[in-house]
């Protein structure tokens, strides 16, 4: 498989010289849905920021063998501009790239349509529920047609039903667009449900403790959460996480 992101010996140190995580070696392939799972403070979010180029690693580096792909980032909070309408929020990446207004509007509208927000273009973020705000955030991410989607615990603050609905929507987008997704979560079940691959990190300093491949999530349906296969996979991820914790302790 084609390697999209190649992390080589990436380390991040605190100002006092203590290692926050790493060295981390990780190859991410085209079209994978990779979840990063680990205890809080193990550097999952930092890894995403390093990949996005928002943070420089202390040592090591990130290579993009196919050239730097178009990257989108979804944060834990919806991170919308409260003064801008939904359409303007979804259009932001296109505006910043100076895409002509008419084309940008069409693409933003299409992105909003794909996350089920048709008809809310002129609303302000404060008029939306938490789940809808997160949908706007996802629409903004896909509006610029990214190849690599980085998500930092995006659904952690949502209720269970909303979260499941967004999980399914995300899988649909991933499948339709052939995206590569790196998804940070602390939920074993969420990672198991979504991913084609789960990378378990150890507590600080975070390193790869386990690299688990699962059946491709394109086959998920409503019954999957109740299936034997899902339970086995979740058990496997859960055990790996427990091993990683004990190993460190």
């Amino acid at each position, binding site marked *: 498989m084609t390697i999209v992101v190649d992390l080589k010996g990436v380390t991040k140190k605190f100002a006092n010289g203590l290692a926050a995580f790493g060295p981390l070696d990780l190859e991410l392939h085209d079209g994978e849905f990779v979840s990063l799972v680990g205890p809080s403070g193990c550097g999952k979010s930092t890894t995403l920021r390093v990949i996005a180029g928002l943070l420089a690693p202390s040592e090591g580096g990130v290579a993009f063998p196919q050239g730097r792909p178009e990257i989108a980032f979804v944060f834990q909070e919806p991170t919308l501009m*409260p*003064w801008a309408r939904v359409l303007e929020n979804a259009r932001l990446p296109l505006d910043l*790239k100076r895409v002509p207004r008419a084309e940008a509007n069409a693409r933003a509208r299409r992105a909003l349509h794909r996350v089920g927000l048709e008809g809310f273009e002129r609303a302000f973020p404060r008029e939306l529920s938490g789940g809808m705000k997160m949908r706007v955030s996802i629409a903004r991410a896909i509006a610029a047609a990214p190849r690599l989607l980085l998500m930092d615990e995006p659904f952690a603050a949502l209720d269970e039903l909303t979260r499941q609905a967004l999980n399914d929507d995300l899988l649909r987008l991933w499948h339709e667009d052939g995206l590569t997704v790196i998804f940070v979560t602390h939920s074993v079940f969420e990672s198991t449900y979504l991913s084609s691959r789960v990378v378990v990190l150890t507590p600080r300093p975070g390193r790869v403790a386990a690299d688990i491949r699962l059946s491709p999530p394109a086959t998920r349906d409503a019954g999957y959460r109740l299936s034997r296969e899902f339970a086995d996979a979740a058990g496997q991820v859960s055990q790996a996480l427990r091993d990683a914790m004990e190993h460190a302790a």
Partner: protein
Amino acid sequence: MIRVLRYGLPLLLGTAVLAAWEFLVHHYDVPVFVLPAPSAIWTAFIENFASLMASLWTTLRITWIAFALAFVSGCAVAILFSQSRLVEMALFPYAVILQVTPVVAIAPLILIWVGFERISLALVIIAWIVAFFPILSSLTLGLRSADANLTDLFRLYGASRWQRITRLQFPGALPYLLSAMKVSGGLALIGAVVAEFAAGSGTATGLAWRIVEAGNRLEIAKMFAALGLLSALGILNFYALSALEYAFLHRWHESALQKEI
């Protein structure tokens, strides 16, 4: 109901106070040079209408020009500060000096430097000094308070510095700026009045000078009339700026949302 109370109550109270004032002045025969009755103030207002209005216009013009200058220069310097810590470190102490030095103390100096033949310019400069700082300090803070994740997003999408200012920092700083404008608008008027007092003599022709002049002649009713106009001007400024604040923020900002209830 709330709306009726909000406007009705102060109005009712004001009327009651005026009526009591009128009654007490007549009842105790208070001399007109100590405390004139509201009716006498009204008469003085009508008699001196032309000169008072001319003075009002002078003070209004100086206040508004000083405020406009404070707005433009405050915004410009704040944007400069938000872009460069070094510039801010170098200049901020001087902005503070401008702010903490009592304006009454610098006013005579400015009047001498600018010259009494250009009195309006001197008054504008003095009023500007007072009105400038709130805009500068609030907007600098506001521009720097942009959401960290949104700032990262702008970086990720390769936003230019100008895009970051106009699309992220400035809209986010609007609540700070609009609140500072209310303070600054009031200070501009105070600055204009103080400047006129400092200028003294017949060169200044604004409301403050009318007050000094009427005081010297013991025309207390006229003094009250000028004072009333000055307050009215201040109130007008404040509510105009409040309306501006509401117009810009009511659709999205928390502060304006609570007002709707």
